[in-house]
């Protein structure tokens, strides 16, 4: 079953065509890496898949129903998002921010239920954020803020997860932990889409790699096939040697 499916997307921002006939599908149980040069349309594709941007042409459907037809809260229970930008204007604690992830499950004006608290606790533990969960987020390092953002998405318990550059600012240990967590989520039948430049780190753990090139889907294939020397040269303009797979799947922490 295809959980999230986009067909023939065209998005124009101003007079620039950002996405040009892109099709994409995300199924439960798979970890998909979305890559491409800066400005290739990765973030835009994520925002269209989230329903935050309506495509000029093409369709997005979630569980075989048009994404735009979903009530906002029901959609939020299916589809979670980790943004690239984690800048905060106010001094919420990490735990308060992660608790916001429970919003789609809560009735207006209701207090936190035991299962909300349990989900927040699980999400904080999953990203190893317990030691700093009750500190104001503005006092945390970039990497710690990012883990809080991931925990907020996990707290929604949505079966589909979209992440924009989640390994930015993460040290090697926490980057590897995050990738292991994403792999674990995919194995537990969640669908995970990661937009990232971190090919070395993510490709070996991904089921598919999707390369965007000039707003078009260049290739959608298993990592080894997608990241062939020829494809990497075309999409990134870089001659790759044997550098990919620096952290192979067998890598242990």
């Amino acid at each position, binding site marked *: 079953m295809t959980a999230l499916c986009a067909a023939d997307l065209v998005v124009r921002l101003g007079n620039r065509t950002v996405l040009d006939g892109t099709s994409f599908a995300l199924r439960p149980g798979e970890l998909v890496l979305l890559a491409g040069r800066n400005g290739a349309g990765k973030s835009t594709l994520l*925002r269209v898949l*989230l*329903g*935050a941007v309506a495509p000029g042409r093409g369709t997005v459907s979630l569980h075989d129903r048009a994404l735009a037809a979903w009530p*906002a*809260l029901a*959609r*939020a*229970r299916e*589809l*979670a*998002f980790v*943004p690239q*930008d984690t800048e*905060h*204007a*106010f*001094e*919420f*604690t990490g735990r*308060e921010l992660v608790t*916001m*992830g429970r*919003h*789609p499950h*809560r009735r*207006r*004006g209701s207090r936190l239920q035991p299962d909300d608290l349990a989900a927040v606790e699980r999400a904080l533990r999953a990203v190893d954020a317990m030691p700093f969960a009750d500190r104001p987020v*503005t006092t945390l390092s970039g990497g710690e803020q990012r883990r809080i953002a991931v925990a*907020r*998405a996990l707290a*929604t318990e949505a079966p589909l997860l*979209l992440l924009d550059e989640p390994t930015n600012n993460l040290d090697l240990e926490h980057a590897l932990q995050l990738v292991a967590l994403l792999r674990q989520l995919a194995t537990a039948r969640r669908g995970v889409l990661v937009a990232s430049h971190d090919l070395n780190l993510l490709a070996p753990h991904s089921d598919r790699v999707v390369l965007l090139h000039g707003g078009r889907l260049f290739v959608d294939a298993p990592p080894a096939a997608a990241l062939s020397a020829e494809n990497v040269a075309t999409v990134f303009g870089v001659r790759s040697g044997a550098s990919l797979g620096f952290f192979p799947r067998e890598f242990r922490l």
Partner: protein
Amino acid sequence: MRASPGRVGGVFVVATVVLALLYLAIGEGPGFAELVRMLTGGETRPDERFVVAQIRLPRLLVALFGGGALATAGVVMQASFRNPLASPDLVGTAAGAAFGGALAIVTRFADAAVVATPLASLAGAMFVTWLVFVLAGAYGRVSVTGLLLAGIALNTLVGALTSFVVTFSFANYTASSEVLFWLMGGLERSTWTHAWITAAGFGVFAGLIAPRTRDLDLMTLRDDSAHSLGIDAPRARRVLLWFACGLTATTVANTGGIAFVGLVVPHLARLVVGPSHRALLPTAALLGGSLLVASDVVCRVAPPEASLRLGVVTAMLGAPYFLYLLARHRRGEVL
């Protein structure tokens, strides 16, 4: 370190009640002894009862609800714009309300009915805020910087127009001095009509905002994040800003220009209970009300020949706080 919201709430309610009783007992005429006798049903003179019930009490209520309204509007605007410097003063809402009110007073429209000034202020506040939105392109994609820039631009323009209305009316000395005094903010002419309008404005709009505290929390995230959690941030922002407009306009119409309350009080409240709006909104409302009551105490105990205006007192409290924020900012802390 944050205090527990329940305990803070208790302390603030007690402090506000004490402050209110103090307010009713100071000034020329009846003092504490007479007030206690009045409250306990003892013997009092009719003129003493009149001073407390018809002069001090309505003025107290205008200060309390007006301060609460401005602080609540400030909290809503800061969350909506994701910017701790947003406030009715900075995005042009207060300037629009002042312009509408000034126009009503000068054209004698204000004499037509008791709600004429509030309505004119509301129209001015809504028009300027709407214009700020349109200029910033907020009906498409929201740019917070754009909104603030448009707010500052219109603030300047509308401020100039208000000055023009005042000088234009110099031919009519009473009208222009009335407008000038009103613009500087003051409560001395508060009657029960003013008290009812201020209380009703606060009750209606704060009542509409109260069930949306979690929306306000989520709006402090980026729009995409809020969207992914089920909040249509641009739409919620528009709705909440109209409510903030309503709070600002009903207050400004009755009090005139009261600077800085909407900007400073949300910060003070956040220092005490943190940024979560469930605790922040009531704390800010109480703190705003008490701050305006305390500022008006300063006006009332100042010698009459000084003619100290309420807006001047709040500005004197607010400006140093801005400098304190600047000092924090220079140490690299979040505002």
